[in-house]
C-alpha cells in the first residue's frame, strides 16, 4: 500500500521536476582570453532578459587557436567566440560549426578593432606610419604569426598599409621583409609582447586597439598611435552544430548584437559592429582603413603568406632572420 502511494507521488512530481529542470539550461561559452571581462558583464545582462532567464553559463577563456583546437578535440561548446575567422573556419571543416554560420548581415562578426602602434611616452621616435618603422634603429616587437594566430592581423596590416601607400604587391612584400629586420622580439602572444614592451624592450609594439584600451583601463602606462592605413580586425562568434541548446545559444548570440550589449563591448575597448552603440566613445575613423578582403580574404592570405613551407612569412622568417 505504502509502496504504491510512494510510486504515485513520484509519478505526480516527476513532470514538475522535469519541467523545472528544463528551464535551467546550461550553455558553454568557449572564447579567447581578451573579452573575458566583457563576457562576464554580457552574461549577467543577458540573464536579466526574458530570453536569458534561467540560463546559466560555463565559461572557458584561453588563446584563440588553443581554444579552437580544444573544441575540435572534443571540448563541448554551445557558443564559440574567437579572435579571428580562420579559428572558426577550421571548426566548419570538422563539421562542428554549420557552413552558413556567417550568412547574416554581420557576416558572423560581433566586435571590431584596429591594429595600432603602442609607443613610448610621447612617441620620441615619431612613429606614425608603416614607413616610419623602417627608420634606422627602430626596434619593433610583434608576436610571431606562426605562434599566435592573432599576430596575422599585424602582418596583414603592414602589408595592406604598404599597398595603400602606393606600393605594388611585390614591393609590399619587400616592405614586409625589410620591416621584419627591425623585429627584435617575437613573443608567442600579444599579452607577452605587451609585458616585454613595458619591461623596456623595443620602440614600438604592434598591437590591437582593444587590448591597448583594456590595458590602459587596468592602469598600464600604455600610449598608442593609430596609423592612417590600418586593418579592420573583426572577431567572429558562432553557435556550434553540436549544441544541445541551439535556441538559447542563438538567443545569446542575437543578444550580443543588440545596442546595449554592443555598448558593453565598447566600454571594454572594442569597436561595435552596431554603429549606434559607438556614440560617446572615442573610436577615431582612419582614412585608409581596409579589411582582410582588401588583401585577399583569409583563405588566400593563409595560403600565400602563412603556409609553413611556401608562405611569404615562412620565407622571411626562414631566411636567416633579421
Amino acid at each position, binding site marked *: 500500500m505504502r509502496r504504491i502511494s510512494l510510486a504515485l507521488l513520484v509519478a505526480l512530481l516527476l513532470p514538475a521536476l522535469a519541467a523545472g529542470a528544463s528551464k535551467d539550461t546550461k550553455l558553454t561559452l568557449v572564447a579567447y582570453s581578451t573579452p573575458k571581462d566583457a563576457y562576464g558583464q554580457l552574461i549577467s545582462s543577458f540573464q536579466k532578459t526574458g530570453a536569458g532567464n534561467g540560463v546559466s553559463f560555463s565559461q572557458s577563456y584561453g588563446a584563440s587557436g*588553443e581554444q579552437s583546437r580544444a573544441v575540435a578535440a572534443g571540448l563541448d561548446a554551445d557558443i564559440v567566440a574567437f579572435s579571428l575567422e580562420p579559428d572558426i573556419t577550421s571548426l566548419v571543416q570538422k563539421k562542428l560549426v554549420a557552413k552558413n554560420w556567417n550568412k547574416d548581415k554581420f557576416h558572423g562578426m560581433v566586435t571590431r578593432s584596429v591594429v595600432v602602434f603602442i609607443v613610448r611616452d610621447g612617441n620620441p621616435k615619431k612613429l606614425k606610419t608603416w614607413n616610419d618603422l623602417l627608420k634606422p634603429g627602430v626596434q619593433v616587437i610583434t608576436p610571431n604569426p606562426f605562434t599566435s594566430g592573432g599576430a596575422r592581423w599585424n602582418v596583414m596590416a603592414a602589408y595592406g598599409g604598404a599597398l595603400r601607400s602606393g606600393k605594388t604587391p611585390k614591393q609590399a612584400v619587400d616592405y614586409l621583409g625589410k620591416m621584419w629586420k627591425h623585429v627584435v*622580439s*617575437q613573443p608567442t602572444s600579444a599579452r607577452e609582447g605587451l609585458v*616585454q614592451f613595458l*619591461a*623596456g624592450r623595443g620602440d614600438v609594439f604592434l598591437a590591437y586597439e582593444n587590448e591597448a584600451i583594456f590595458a590602459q583601463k587596468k592602469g598600464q602606462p600604455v600610449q598608442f598611435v593609430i596609423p592612417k592605413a590600418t586593418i579592420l580586425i573583426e572577431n567572429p562568434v558562432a553557435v556550434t552544430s553540436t549544441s544541445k541548446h541551439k535556441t538559447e545559444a542563438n538567443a545569446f548570440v542575437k543578444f550580443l548584437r543588440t545596442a546595449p550589449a554592443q555598448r558593453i563591448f565598447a566600454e571594454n575597448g572594442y569597436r561595435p559592429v552596431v554603429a549606434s552603440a559607438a556614440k560617446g566613445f572615442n573610436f577615431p575613423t582612419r582614412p585608409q582603413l581596409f579589411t582582410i578582403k582588401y588583401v585577399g580574404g583569409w583563405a588566400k592570405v593563409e595560403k600565400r603568406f602563412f603556409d609553413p613551407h611556401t608562405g611569404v612569412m615562412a620565407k622571411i622568417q626562414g631566411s636567416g632572420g633579421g
Partner: protein
Amino acid sequence: MAARAAALPSPRARRSPAPGLAVGLSTLYLSVIVLLPLAALSWHAHGWEAIASAQAVSSLKLTLGVSMVVALVNAVAGTVIAWTLVRDRFVGQGFVNALVDLPFALPTIVAGLTLLALYGPKSPTGVNIAFTRWAILVALLFVTLPFVVRTVQPVLLELDTEMEDAAASLGAGRLATFRRVILPNILPAILSGVALAFARAVGEFGSVVLISGNLPFKTEVVSVYVFGRIESGDAGGAAAASVVILAISFAVLLAIGGCRRWVTRHDR
C-alpha cells in the same frame, strides 16, 4: 641432501613473486602513462620535412647546446650546493634548503616575469641579458636548479664517513679525499640529476619564451618552433619534430646512463 635443502629456505624461491611483480607493475604503469601517448604522437606524425628546415635545425642546435651547458653547470653548482646543505653548518641553512625546490613549484609564467624584471632592460641590478642567448641559459638554470642538488643530497646523507676519516688519517688532503673517495660515490647521483636537468632543459617552454624573444636562428628554442607548428595547424609536423627531439634526448640519456655504468664498473 633433500633434508638439508629443506632446512634452509632458498632465498630465490622466497623472493620469486616480488621481482616479477615490481617489474611487471612498473612497466605497465610506464606503458600506460608514457608510452601510449608517445605512440599516439608518433602515429600522428607526418611531414618530417618540418624538422629538416633550416629554422628547425637551428632551433634544435641551440636547444641541445644550451641544454648541455645547463646540465654541466648544474653538475658543478648542484654538487657544491648539496655539499653546503649537508656537510656545512650555518645560520639559515634549513631555510635555504626549503627554498631549493621553489623554482619548480612556481608556474613558468611567474618564473619568466620575474627573470625579465630582474635581469631585463629595467633590471635593478643593471644586469640586462634579456633577449639574448644568455637569457635562455639563465631561465633554464633557474628551472633546473633543484635537480642535481636533490639527487646528490640523499647520497651524501647516506654516505659513510669512515672512508673519508680513513683517508684523512692516512694523510690525504681534502681535495684528494674528495676526488678519490667522495666523488666516485656521488658521481652516479650527479649523473642522475644531470639527466633530469638535460631533459627538462630540452623541453622547457614557459619560462624561456618571455625572456628570450624567440627570434628564429637567434633565440628560438625548439619548443617554441614546435608550438608554432601546432598553432599553424600543422600538428603532424609538430608531432614529427617532437619525435625527433625525443629520439635525440633518448640517445643522450642512454649515453649518460652508459657513463654511469662506466663510472661504477668496479662496483660490480
